């Protein structure tokens, strides 16, 4: 790739998803991250009970992310051809798992704040 800069990457992602959807997704990701950091700062501690549920949701996030990628493309598990493909697959799964865990934890914290 020539000039693989942040602006190029943004331009490419805008084309993949469409400008509106891309920035909506970026906004959603930022919003969830900010909300997550907000509840961490607000509560001053992780609630292990909420974290447990978040952890339990991780496999679902991982599977959903992989299935999403395969559904959006003409490809499946049998197309894994080399080490980088396994890394990409695990990366997609990890993103899905962490993303969903953060979302589940944040939603719980926002809905049921700890009693002071």
């Amino acid at each position: 790739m020539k000039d693989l800069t942040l602006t190029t990457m943004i331009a490419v992602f805008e084309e993949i998803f469409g400008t509106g959807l891309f920035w909506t997704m970026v906004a959603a990701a930022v919003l969830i991250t900010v909300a997550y950091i907000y509840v961490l700062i607000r509560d001053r501690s992780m609630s292990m009970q909420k974290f447990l549920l978040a952890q339990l949701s991780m496999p679902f996030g991982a599977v959903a992310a992989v299935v999403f990628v395969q559904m959006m493309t003409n490809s499946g598990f049998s197309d894994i051809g080399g080490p980088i493909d396994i890394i990409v697959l695990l990366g997609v799964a990890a993103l899905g798992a962490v993303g969903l865990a953060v979302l589940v934890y944040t939603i719980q914290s926002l809905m049921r704040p700890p009693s002071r």
Partner: protein
Amino acid sequence: MTDANFETSRRMFLGLAASGLAATVAASRAMAAAPVKTSARVVIIGAGAGGTALVNRLVDRLEGAKITILDPSKEHLYQPGLSLVAAGLKPASYTQSKTTDWLSGDIEYINEAAAGIDPETRTVTTAGGQKIGYDFLVVAPGLVLDNDAIEGFSLDLIGSNGIGALYAGPDYAARTWQAAQKFTEDGGVGIFTRPATEMKCAGAPLKHTFLIDDIARTTGNAGKTNIIYAANNNSLFGVPIVSEKVRMLFDNRGITPAYSHVLKSIEPGKRLATFDTPDGDAELEYDYLHVIPPQRAPDVIRQSGLSWSDKWIGQGWVEVDKQTLRHLRYPEIFALGDVAGVPKGKTAASVKWQVPVVEDHLVAAIEGREGTALYNGYTSCPLITRVGRAMLIEFDYNNNLTPSFPGIIAPLEELWISWLMKEVALKATYNAMLRGKA
């Protein structure tokens, strides 16, 4: 914990986020250089990948220039998508958009072909008879498919009679799939050809071969098909190391190479194809035949005296320096894309590398200095080997492999990630390039 502490944290956090955002904005603004003030007249022939990408960069680089772009087609084609259309993986509409969708309002767009170029008086005449003077000219009209050069072949045959020709355009690519799909179901002899001239994307004939073989395989009909790849010379690809890899893949997949077999004529009624070979004519029967006709520069280029006179005789590619893409006899003329008389380089990936080079030399010439950017012949080909896998092959003028991700994405390995790039990221990158952003 006190409330005061909490407030400090929140303020710090928000401050941090805001300063990060400000830094990003400042950095992206600093990258854009101040536009050059000029009254130069720049004419660009062709609003395909090259012409469109260049014009969208020039409007940011030049202030006050009169930029005119000519193209007879109202439709813009995403040509890298045609091989997917011809394998039934995407609809024809995947490759189609409007030419005007990609052009900004600050330029003049003339929906006509260039009918004449006079490099001495620096004038372009349009098909409608309009004369346009220029100070700088960029020729990027693409190439023409010489369908008549294959005796017995005509475009209306595509899709029936077991004939496919995916280069002919989106609808023809879709009809190619009709013929190819029938072959993957009924089986028989499939012959996949390529011309002996320079051609756009020399990987596409191989992709079509691999895809149709793979689809026949997954539909359970591999035993019924006999696939022959008719190469134009003694290799399967211009880059020796890639040619060897393809030879091994063919061997593994049971695809038979027929070296130095150049398609000359067809008899659709008899399903008989005649090839020019070193040992004279050879006739082969087929159930599916993929035709790629010889390719040449458009007539307007060949008649304007801009072509090489001692290279690629009869093909008419523009005589340019292979590193600067500047005409060797008329320094105010540049060539971009398929029409440029350089080895290799007839792909959208080449265009992506060529556009900044032409931009640099053009803007430098307007400023009265010499440009410094050089094109090294870079070309990229996500060589699809089956639905779901491809090899990300990148190379230069010297047949060196030039991987973008060395040690991470192996160029000669059939990988899922290379397929994902082709299917997901390539069109997006292409569109970003058209907008002048990549």
